[in-house]
């Protein structure tokens, strides 16, 4: 027991994340949780995320949609988490897990329908793989060789196989995987430094990647290009002019036609339909 506690003490973040996976599974339903339960506990759905509930971009990464999903992700976490946490430290590991979760949530949120909920730690786990790839690339891996080393080749194979599984298996959001992978890679590349290397100016490509990532995050939180944002904004609008602008933007976004909904009554019906579909999901 003491030995187990001593081991867990060396990897507190991995242990806490695994504990959160299991606890939240039991708080919802470990076998087949209902969509409404998942939404209530923090699943990421574009409508809510774009409507002021940005915290869902993190909370979804601790929820799972069933026993198999939970077991697979927990196994992946305890397989790759401890080595990475020991290598870069608990704070950096936690930052990379969160960056992977947010990156996965952002890309999935922009790619998927705003009504589709997203759950699972796989985006964040891909973030960890991205971080390991970045570190192998940047620091040369064990015994040198960079991406050509055995570590590098194994990592690339693992990522390729898991992405392939994501494309083949239905209900898997590969957008979240890709987003998590990229976010983890960039976070580790920028955040983890070698004590031997001198501090250098940020490379233009990395700076551009950061600006792009920040822009995507803001666009996920305020999806001004999407129909659901405009129908909710129409409902909140105080003046007739504002309502008119959002009515036309909604029509343009949903059907490439500014006048698909001609008046406020039509918008009210669209809003009621959206509320009904969300309530149905809940």
């Amino acid at each position, binding site marked *: 027991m003491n030995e187990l506690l001593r081991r867990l003490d060396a990897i507190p973040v991995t242990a806490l994340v695994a504990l959160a996976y299991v606890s939240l599974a039991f708080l919802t339903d470990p076998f087949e949780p209902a969509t409404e339960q998942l939404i209530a506990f923090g699943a990421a759905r574009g409508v809510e995320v774009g409507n002021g509930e940005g915290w869902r971009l993190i909370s979804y990464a601790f929820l799972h949609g069933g026993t198999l999903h939970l077991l697979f992700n927990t196994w992946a976490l305890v397989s790759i988490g401890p080595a990475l946490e020991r290598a870069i430290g608990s704070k950096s590991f936690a930052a990379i897990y969160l960056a992977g979760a947010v990156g996965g949530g952002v890309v999935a949120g922009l790619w998927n329908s705003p009504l589709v909920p997203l759950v699972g730690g796989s985006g964040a786990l891909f973030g960890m793989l991205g971080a390991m790839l970045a570190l192998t690339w940047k620091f040369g891996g064990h015994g040198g060789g960079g991406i050509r080393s055995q570590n590098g080749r194994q990592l690339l194979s693992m990522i390729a196989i898991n992405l392939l599984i994501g494309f083949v298996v239905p209900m898997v959001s590969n957008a979240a995987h890709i987003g998590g992978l990229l976010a983890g890679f960039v976070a580790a590349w920028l955040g983890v430094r070698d004590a*031997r290397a001198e501090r250098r100016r940020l490379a233009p490509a990395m700076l551009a990647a950061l600006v792009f990532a920040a822009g995507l995050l803001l666009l996920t939180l305020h999806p001004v290009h999407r129909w659901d944002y405009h129908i909710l904004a129409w409902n909140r609008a105080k003046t007739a002019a504002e309502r008119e*602008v959002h009515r036309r933007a909604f029509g343009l976004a949903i059907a490439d036609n500014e006048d698909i909904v001609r008046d406020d009554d039509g918008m009210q019906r669209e809003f009621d339909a959206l509320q009904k579909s969300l309530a149905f999901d809940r």
Partner: protein
Amino acid sequence: MDTNEEARALPGARPLQRLLRALPRALLWAVACWPVVILGVGMSRPLEAVALHQSTMQTLGVALRWGAIVVLALAVLVPPFPAGIRVLLARLVARLRADRGPFLHAIGELRHLETAARQLEAGRAALGAMDARAAIPHLVRALALDPELIAARYQLGLALLDRGALREAAGALHHVVDRDPTHAFGGALLWLARCHQLGGNPHEAMALFGRHEREHGGNRRSHYWLAQSRAACADRAGAHAAFAIAAAPRGKQRLSAEEGWYRALARVALWRFPAATTRGAAR
């Protein structure tokens, strides 16, 4: 003419080259700023934000479709195109596979003891990792510690050339050629000639490429560059001869991506520089 005068005589990169180099960076920033632009527009003009997003997506779709068509057409119509794609892929793979481990190791070694040789090793490792920007300070430091370290000056010339500092690269390489004309099996001579060629000094480039060919033989790339400089000096027969060597049949041996690229370029160039007898017969 001493080294510095020689270097001062060279102009920098041409405006068109600077523009072409800036184009990928401009595209990168345009893509990077796109979400922020959509958001900024959407905050004050929601309708325009939706329209901008949709038109961007439509334009992107059209650009991808037409891009694919243009690539296919170029592959069929322009002979160097497949070789160009191959060389671009080879460079991309080399960049992706570049290993920073030896560079970091060399920096670590420098913390214990700094010598010119160790600084040179760090600079060389940085160049091996395709990071010329990181290599330059180490090579400059190596030369400060030992100004007679010819290898460091050669590597510095290569790093400066990689960064587009033609005058400074030519200065460093000229110094190497003065001291050791056969350095790096004629590499210093070749890259000095290339500096002059890129700097718009074809006569000097032609003389140096010619000397490189006489003393070291050369390969398809150096013959192609020699032919280009001869063509720039209006020596059509000489250009034809050098292009013909660069475009020679490859035999059974598979060419590297770069050799294939220069061979393809030379074959196309031969259409513009036919042999004198052929031209006469045609007339």
